[in-house]
């Protein structure tokens, strides 16, 4: 007997996400084709970007924890948090990630790590204080969905091109600056300056397109995680109420505090960093609250229908 599910698949979301990923792939192909056609060698930059992203990917759990001031806690230290994660993992049949707590009053939670066996789920003391057990469970199931979907790997891959373009822009900018600064004047240098300007323009263009696409992809991944999380707990309304509480609180906190909490986004030059998927801190990488609540309301309605 096929297992019955109470949720219907969201084909629209899957289609939009596939299209976004197709566009990102297309951009990769276009850039590679252009590189080959014009015999441009950016091997050096590619290696730097690959190393940077690999480090970021491989150590994503430790870096995100360090960035947020998170500390891995044992079941004895945080029995409630571990209890919730234990049960969710048993329901979803996934390995249990490490559980961490960050001692900050900003209400937030994130999941990170390169694969489900190296994942960390972290909640701040602020979010644990503000949410009740059911809402916290909704938030954690959203984060566990990110782990199950391997969003760190997906977003790292998607943002690679953006990182390369960003690096080239910087190199071109500095080389242009120093080239002009020393005031050498001859034809070759003029040619070189024009070349640098073209490279800069193109890489800025690639960067912008890649930035927008990865942001869009990130928003779809968030909606997917909301969906899977609600599917896991069977309580979309608890996640909805958590979102409302958290975003309401977030918007009242001054910007400077927010920046202090996100040093990694200031530090790295790429969009939609794969350093961890926080539930609320990066508004632009997340869909609007209305959109998320609307989806959760739809799921709640599906649950409300009588047993078939």
């Amino acid at each position: 007997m096929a297992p019955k599910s109470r949720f219907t698949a969201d084909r629209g979301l899957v289609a939009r996400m596939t299209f976004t990923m197709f566009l990102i792939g297309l951009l990769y192909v276009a850039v590679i084709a252009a590189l080959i056609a014009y015999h441009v060698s950016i091997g050096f930059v590619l290696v730097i970007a690959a190393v940077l992203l690999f480090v970021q990917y491989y150590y994503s759990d430790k870096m995100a924890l360090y960035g947020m001031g998170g500390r891995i806690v044992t079941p004895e230290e945080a029995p409630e948090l571990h209890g919730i994660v234990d049960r969710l993992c048993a329901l979803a049949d996934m390995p249990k990630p490490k559980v961490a707590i960050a001692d900050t009053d900003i209400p937030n939670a994130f999941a990170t790590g390169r694969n489900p066996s190296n994942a960390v789920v972290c909640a701040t003391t602020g979010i644990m204080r503000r949410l009740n057990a059911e809402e916290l469970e909704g938030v954690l199931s959203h984060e566990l969905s990110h782990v199950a979907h391997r969003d760190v790997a997906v977003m790292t891959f998607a943002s690679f091109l953006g990182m390369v373009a960003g690096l080239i822009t910087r190199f071109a900018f500095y080389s242009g600056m120093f080239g002009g600064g020393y005031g050498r004047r001859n034809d070759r240098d003029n040619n070189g300056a024009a070349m640098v300007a073209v490279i800069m323009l193109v890489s800025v263009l690639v960067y912008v397109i890649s930035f927008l696409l990865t942001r869009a992809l990130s928003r779809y991944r968030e909606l997917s995680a909301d969906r899977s999380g609600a599917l896991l707990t069977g309580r979309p309304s608890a996640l909805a109420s958590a979102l409302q509480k958290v975003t309401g609180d977030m918007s009242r906190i001054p910007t400077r505090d927010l920046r202090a909490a996100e040093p990694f986004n200031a530090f790295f030059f790429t969009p939609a960093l794969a350093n961890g998927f926080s539930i609320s801190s990066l508004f632009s990488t997340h869909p609007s609250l209305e959109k998320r609540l609307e989806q959760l309301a739809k799921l709640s309605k599906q649950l409300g229908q009588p047993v078939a």
Partner: protein
Amino acid sequence: MGLLDTILGRTKPAKADLDDLFALPGAAVTLEAGLGLKPTGTGSVCVKPAEGQGFAGLREQVDQLLAADNDKYTETKDAFGFSWITREGDAGDIQDLVGDLHTVNASLEDAGFGPALLCTLITFSDGGPPVGLVYLYKRGTWYPFVPTGKEQRDNSRELQLKATIGSDLKIEPDLSRWFPVWGAPGL
């Protein structure tokens, strides 16, 4: 999850595996012979109640089912928001207990709440504090759980139990999935 599901960010809800529940009576015999542990007659099904009328309607069904059985069942809610449907009955008849628990499971699964099933707990005792055997639906495996006080468990006893019943039941090989169920009914 397949690669495609990962790429598309989809989750297929984990299916509940009810079959291995029926391996319990054999293990109960081994437990009594090997360690003097007898079933207490208490068994419970832990389920994550979903919101909305769909689950509420199902609950009525289960209530009717339970009422028909002369109130052998009680339902309690734990601190994590999970429901425990507990059946307390004749300590001698473990076959009957397993059959009753399966009825509850099957009715939940038929209504599409298979993914909401967390575990089944059956308790044993040798006159001292009770020990539990936990069945994980999603893995189709068992593990022992021996609480010894407030949020403390006796790991060596658990490993001893595992060694005793290892050939009767499929024991969960990944020790990190032996999650504690503090304060579960019957423990």
